[in-house]
């Protein structure tokens, strides 16, 4: 499965149109978010370059999930800006030069370029595994169905689930479901993949198979932001580790550096629990 020629095509979405080579795929600027009067994000800024893999860590309740969800506006923000692949997400300048919210249709089109893998997979139970993968390319992007089905089969093959194409999601193990969920996102040929603790709902023996797929994806050049407590994976795959605490980024650096020489006392405390 971890054959490089395969993984190159697996992440072919990453080389699609949008920002020119070298420019950042994600550019979050001073993002603020509160639920009621509970402040969750107080000025988070993050840039992720094309092909970069960033792992987001931090204590429970730090706002990791919330931040990840703001990147495709599943969570609307109260302040700041988010740009993905050169497009400002959720907002645009109208004909009179004023900044306004995008329409539902425009926002949907932006989200179509951003893959999101959920902790609990969220596969569509009323469809087969294969249909889960080709549904959005056909119905959202208007791809030709035969081509989309062929592409879906290819992706299932790559995540090692070709034999399960006609099965129902609920008959699969957690690890298999999560691999289908990854294939489903990849089918949209996204410019960016977001993962929110993709292995934390899995039985320990299934974690490896999902991480292997993610590693392939990273090796294939996909730009990824991953919330994860899998430190082995992080050490091996991440280009950068970003530590979020209390709604702020308190540390940002290469894994080796962050793990061996954290700048912040809170990072030290947090890492002592997870390493």
């Amino acid at each position, binding site marked *: 499965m971890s054959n490089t020629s395969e993984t190159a095509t697996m992440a072919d979405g990453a080389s699609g149109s949008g920002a020119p080579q070298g420019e950042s795929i994600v550019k979050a600027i001073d993002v603020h978010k509160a639920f009621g009067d509970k402040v969750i994000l107080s000025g988070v800024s993050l840039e992720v370059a094309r092909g970069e893999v960033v792992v987001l860590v931090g204590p429970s309740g730090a706002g990791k999930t919330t931040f990840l969800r703001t990147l*495709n506006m*599943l969570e609307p923000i109260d302040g700041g800006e988010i740009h993905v692949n050169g497009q400002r997400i959720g907002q645009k300048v109208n004909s009179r030069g004023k900044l306004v919210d995008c329409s*539902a*249709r425009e926002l*949907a*089109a932006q*989200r*179509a*370029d*951003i*893959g*999101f893998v*959920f902790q*609990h997979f*969220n*596969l*569509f*139970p*009323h469809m*087969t595994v294969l249909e889960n993968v080709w*549904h*959005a390319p056909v*119905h*959202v*992007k208007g791809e030709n169905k035969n081509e989309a089905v062929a592409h879906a089969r290819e992706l299932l093959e790559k995540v090692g689930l070709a034999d399960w194409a006609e099965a*129902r*999601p*609920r*008959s699969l193990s957690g690890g298999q*479901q999560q691999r289908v*969920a990854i294939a*489903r*996102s990849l089918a*949209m040929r996204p410019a960016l993949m977001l993962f929110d603790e993709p292995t934390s709902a899995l039985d320990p023996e299934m974690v490896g198979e999902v991480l292997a797929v993610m590693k392939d994806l990273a090796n294939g050049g996909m730009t990824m932001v991953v919330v994860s407590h899998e430190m082995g994976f992080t050490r091996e795959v991440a280009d950068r580790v970003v530590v979020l605490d209390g709604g702020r980024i308190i540390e940002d650096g290469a894994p080796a550096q962050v793990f061996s020489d954290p700048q912040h006392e809170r990072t030290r405390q947090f890492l002592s629990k997870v390493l």
Partner: protein
Amino acid sequence: MNFNWEFFWQALFTPSRQFLDGLMLTIVISVVAMALAFIVGLIIALMGRSKFLPFKIFASLYIWVIRGTPLLVQLVIIYTGFAAAGIFRFEDADLFGLVIRGAVQAAIVGLMLNESAYVAEIVRSGLESVERGQHEAALSLGMTPLAAMRRIIVPQAIRIMVPPLGNSFNQMMKQTSILSIIGVSEMFQVGTIISSATFMVFEIYIVVALYYLLLTTVWTFIQAQIENVLNTRAGLPKAEPVFKRLFGVRSKKMTRQQLQQHADAVKA
């Protein structure tokens, strides 16, 4: 016991034209009212989910008032009450050469309004039974909220909604018997007319009861069929067999098993 078997068999197996017309009217009113109630109920349910406050308030008031008052009273108000107050009078109308009596129109409207409040509640809880994550997964794949509703949420919710909707329809078919109060010549009203003309009171009402039983039984079969088709499409085991529905033998074990299936489905 005084029971005229000859009259009974005759009324049961060779019902009069008048009786069959009554039966037909019962079916037509039920089906038309249910179809309209489904549309109105859907609209009320969507209003209840809307972010626009006046819609939400209207939906809540509507459901509260309609479910909190008897159908009989609602019918009399919209047919007799409205006419007496000079608000609105249901007049006989001509639909493609078919005369539809004012009372029948009032009956359809009344049943439709009444049923729609129940449909709205069923639709609401059906939509709520679909996990939030489904909606979010759909959005993350680039669907608009409307497309997510149509392609992801509704197909899953329908399966949850069909059993209670079917039961509600069953209930409504039986309730058409009170339409006699506003002079609709449905099956029960016809039975009453026959009984006062023949004095075969017991016999004719038993026949009427058997015909209602026939209607609800046939519907139970149809409903089971619909549920099975939906379950098969969703890759789930078959719905509860018809004899179990009819005779109410839903064992505790079965219920727990179904709960488990539901829990598994939700978890997946």
